[in-house]
């Protein structure tokens, strides 16, 4: 299911590097290898029409710390089962933005947000919405890996479910599945009882991702997930993101532009709380439309 206010059935299909038969509109948008485009009717605040099913959509989102407006009216889709990177200089609002996508922003005292954030057909800022339930559907991974140090690897994976009071019928199977998903199973299957903190940085981060995945979220938010990792661990996490993309919608905030170029299908450039440009990553890094985007990605910071 996707967020659209109007849908027109595609009359021609845009093929990508992975050529395949077109899928029918309205079905699971990601039959392997297919990219087809449906016009959505709402533009982004950077003036660009997006043409793919959106899992989430921010609509005139504004976020405040006290009286200070840090997100100044952003309208932007998060496309279904794609990786979207958000880049921009420090203070541009990228971390604040993703924290608005799962109702984390307001956890900071004195913070609030206005506007709407659609998760499929539901506005997560709607009157009767339970933020805790939102955060089950929209999970988050942080910059510093934070496995619960007093818990075993196994218990770390199950922690999210237990803390939410969710009964697990077959915890062993769940633990194995989640650790397989993050390519950690083979490395830790014989030491599941060991503390989460006994792992290397890269392994810890993958464990945190596994912990997120145990709740079966639909969207994964990642706030600079590789900043604390060495190049090899970074490569492993990026490889993981590439694999997860088939099943999850991913938003990654990064100050490493090369990383955005490597992992993301779409890239959004933020500056001073506004969306400057949103487009396919290839376009942003070969022929961006906005001068400010061009200046930022090439290193002309002024």
């Amino acid at each position, binding site marked *: 299911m996707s967020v659209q206010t109007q849908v027109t059935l595609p009359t021609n299909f845009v093929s990508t590097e992975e050529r395949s038969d077109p899928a029918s509109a309205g079905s699971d948008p990601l039959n392997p290898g297919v990219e087809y485009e449906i016009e959505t009717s709402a533009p982004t605040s950077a003036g660009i029409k997006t043409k793919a099913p959106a899992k989430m959509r921010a609509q005139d989102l504004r976020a405040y710390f006290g009286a200070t407006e840090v997100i100044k009216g952003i309208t932007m889709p998060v496309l279904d089962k794609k990786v979207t990177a958000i880049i921009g200089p420090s203070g541009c609002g990228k971390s604040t933005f993703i924290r608005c996508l799962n109702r984390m922003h307001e956890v900071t005292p004195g913070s609030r947000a206005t506007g709407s954030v659609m998760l499929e057909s539901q506005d997560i800022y709607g009157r009767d919405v339970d933020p805790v339930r939102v955060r089950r559907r929209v999970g988050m991974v942080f910059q510093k890996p934070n496995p619960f140090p007093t818990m075993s690897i196994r218990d770390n994976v199950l922690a999210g479910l237990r803390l939410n009071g969710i009964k697990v019928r077959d915890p062993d199977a769940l633990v194995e599945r989640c650790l397989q998903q993050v390519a950690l199973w083979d490395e830790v299957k014989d030491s599941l009882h060991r503390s989460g903190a006994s792992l290397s940085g890269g392994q810890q981060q993958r464990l945190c991702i596994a912990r997120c995945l145990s709740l079966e979220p639909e969207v994964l938010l990642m706030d600079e997930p590789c900043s604390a990792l060495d190049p090899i661990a970074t490569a492993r996490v990026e490889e993981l993101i590439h694999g997860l993309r088939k099943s999850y919608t991913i938003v990654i905030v990064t100050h490493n*532009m090369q990383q955005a170029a490597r992992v993301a299908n779409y890239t959004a450039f933020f500056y001073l709380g506004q969306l400057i440009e949103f487009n396919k990553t290839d376009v942003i*890094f070969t*022929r*961006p439309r906005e001068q400010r985007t*061009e200046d930022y*990605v*090439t290193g002309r910071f002024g």
Partner: protein
Amino acid sequence: MGRVHTDKEYENELNQLRELVLLMGARVEEMIGMAMRAFRERDLSLARSTMASDRNIDQLEMEIDELALKILARRQPVASDLRFITTTLKLVTDLERVGDLGVNICERVLELVDDVPLDADSAITRLAESAHGMLQDALDAFVQYDAVKANQVMERDQTVDGYYAQLFPELVTHMMKNPAVVYRATRLQSIGKYLERIADHATNIAEMVVFMVKGQDVRHGQGPG
């Protein structure tokens, strides 16, 4: 480009690359000019020294390739910088070929010097002026990031093709009237061909400039957008 790189070293490297390309372009233009002067004035020693100067041009091509490679490795350029560097790498190939064509012209000049003059020289001169002009303007467009100028160069290629197409029947007429001029006529035909090829290379350069400036690939008859 308005703004400069925050990293001055990077900015300097890009400028250095640009200057080397301009130097190579200037040498190639000069070479074609000298080759045609050697032709007009039947100047053997000028022809020979012009041929020797091709070595400098080949040397520059290698220097430019090396610097471009280093920048790609060190800086991982994107967007306009990336287009600039990939354009540079392709452009110098065309320039190097123009240098070779200059050598070819000089070789024909050496063969012609003792021969009877033939009244097709004005057709050759017209071809030479057009091709040389296109080359100059294509290189100016590169320096000035001027896609409009580049498009104008592309439009002139048809005119040059037309001049070349006229040259051949003219030479055939001469050859039929006086078989003694066959040797000279075929040499002139070759020179005409080289000049037409120089115009083609200038057109290639112009197409690359459009790509560099606008990100549009206008080669092979593909229009913009």
